[in-house]
């Protein structure tokens, strides 16, 4: 019983950390990637990406807490973030910044 309670507590802490760090990382990378890939003026694209990122954040938080098991969420988040980061990195190194 006590072991189960402490296991639950650990999982809540793990999910909380993943929700905060994961959601901010994902939202930041969505903002950055959209800023790179959206067509048109650079400032416009940056602002559009930034606005969208505020909707990404709570969606990820709910996903992290709503999923039955936390590990698949962690894996998907890491893969998703890595892909977005790679795309942004590649775009900046080849296209440069203003």
């Amino acid at each position: 019983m006590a072991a189960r309670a402490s296991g639950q507590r650990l999982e809540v802490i793990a999910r909380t950390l993943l929700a905060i760090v994961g959601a901010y990382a994902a939202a930041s990378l969505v903002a950055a990637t959209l800023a790179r890939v959206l067509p048109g003026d650079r400032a416009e694209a940056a602002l559009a990406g930034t606005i969208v990122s505020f909707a990404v954040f709570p969606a990820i938080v709910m996903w992290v807490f709503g999923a039955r098991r936390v590990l698949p969420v962690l894996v998907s988040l890491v893969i998703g973030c890595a892909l977005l980061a790679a795309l942004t990195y590649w775009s900046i190194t080849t296209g440069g910044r203003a």
Partner: protein
Amino acid sequence: MKAAFRQSMSWLHTWTGLLVGWILFAVFLSGTLAYFNSEITLWMQPETSQTRSQSDAVAKGGAWLQQNHPDAVEWSIFPANERGGAVRVLWTPPPATPDAKPVRDPDRDIAWLDPNTGQQINVRDTMGGAFFYRLHFDMHYMPRIWGRWIVGVCAMFMFVAILTGIVVHRKIFTDFFTLRFNKGQRSWLDAHNVVGVLALPFHIMITFTGFVTLASMYMPWGIAANFANDDDYFKSAFPQPEIPDTRGAPAPPLDLAAALATVDARWNGASPSSVTVFRPADTSAVVRMFQTSSAQIDSRADAIVMNRAGEVIWAKAGKGAATQTFGVMVGLHAGRYAGPDLRWLYFLSGLGGTTMIGTGLILWTVKRKRKHAAKSVAHVGLRLVEVLNTGTIVGFPLGVAAYFIANRLVPLDTVERAEAEIGWFFAAWGVSYIYAALRPAPRAWFELLAAAAAAFAAIPLLSAFTTGRNLFTSIASGDWTRATIDFALLATAVLFAFAARKVAAKSDAAPSHPRRSREQAQTS
């Protein structure tokens, strides 16, 4: 699976809401009051009359500077909008020697004018309604950047709490019409649901656009991806008027009439909200005007630069879709565009949000009190939440009352007078927590509610004795803004008196009820 999802969302809703509920309550209530910031400032500066025409107030400011500071190297005029009063004028006196750099003394080179007579007046030093506006996102007694991050993090908790609240809430439309009174926990839940659902689009809009107002601070990575430094981004996204600095020959101090005629035509009658004249006594004089933000939803108002003859030498370029979306979102949040009806709707929705947070906080304790009463164990966490609830939900309004009272009682020649008024606000609010911690819960609720009722009822009376204005003179002179505020203060007093009576009736009835008396014994 679906039930499990709802359950986890319910858990998330409870804890995101509770952890930052007290800060959110203060943020929501201060933001709600800030919708009437100009009106509150007008009430807090009884020395001024209400602005009838903002453009005319600018012209009056220009005329006063022309007459009193014709040799200044720079003038600025900040009229209040038509909801407010006094005009603020600033100037930079000419340097002692022609080569020296002109310097403005912030304490001396400033004057306040009545917007309708154009005469200089002595308004009391107060932050007025702007205090609530700043408190809403800067907090106080801490660096601004800290306050903004704290509010931002809490707002994200709020956003998650709203979205999970929708998931948890099964019967949104049925509950829309369900409000059962005097049923304990069920009534608190009904109240929480009704105010939450009634203004749900407002809650979602206001929380989301709240992030957008400080977007580049909370989420700088979109900009970082495209710009090597922030300045380049801001220059590109929000180009500022350029002021030519070539000097001409001495000339009589500038008359604003030509520039005002130009903007009147260009802006379809919308007024300027901020006017700066560079080198007013030179042929090279330049006038820069920003358009009042009540002219359109977009918060990024138009700007224009004119020469001495009122000819446009710089105008703002058209905006892109994202910049316009951004401006409209910020505008929707701040509501500066709103006329009187819509402003009241904003205010009521804000009160609804504040009530949603307050009832949510109370619901947390009501639920757990029943559980713990059944097990008859005292609970430190429950007691802590109860003290914080009482100290915030009644303490913050009590602070507001103290702020208004201080405005009438703090001597006019006090050094740092505006800050002294704010000190009263935080003192009353802070003492509420101590009081709530020292008294048993139902007594603390009753006594603080009664104190708030008395304090709000006292303000219009105090105001009548300490200023030349009272409710009757305000009505007689058609000063509806000040009269409405006096009425609102009295209505608030009645509301708190009603709440105090409710609490008293409840705790008197309690000992006859076995479960309740046990619960009272632990909380005391």
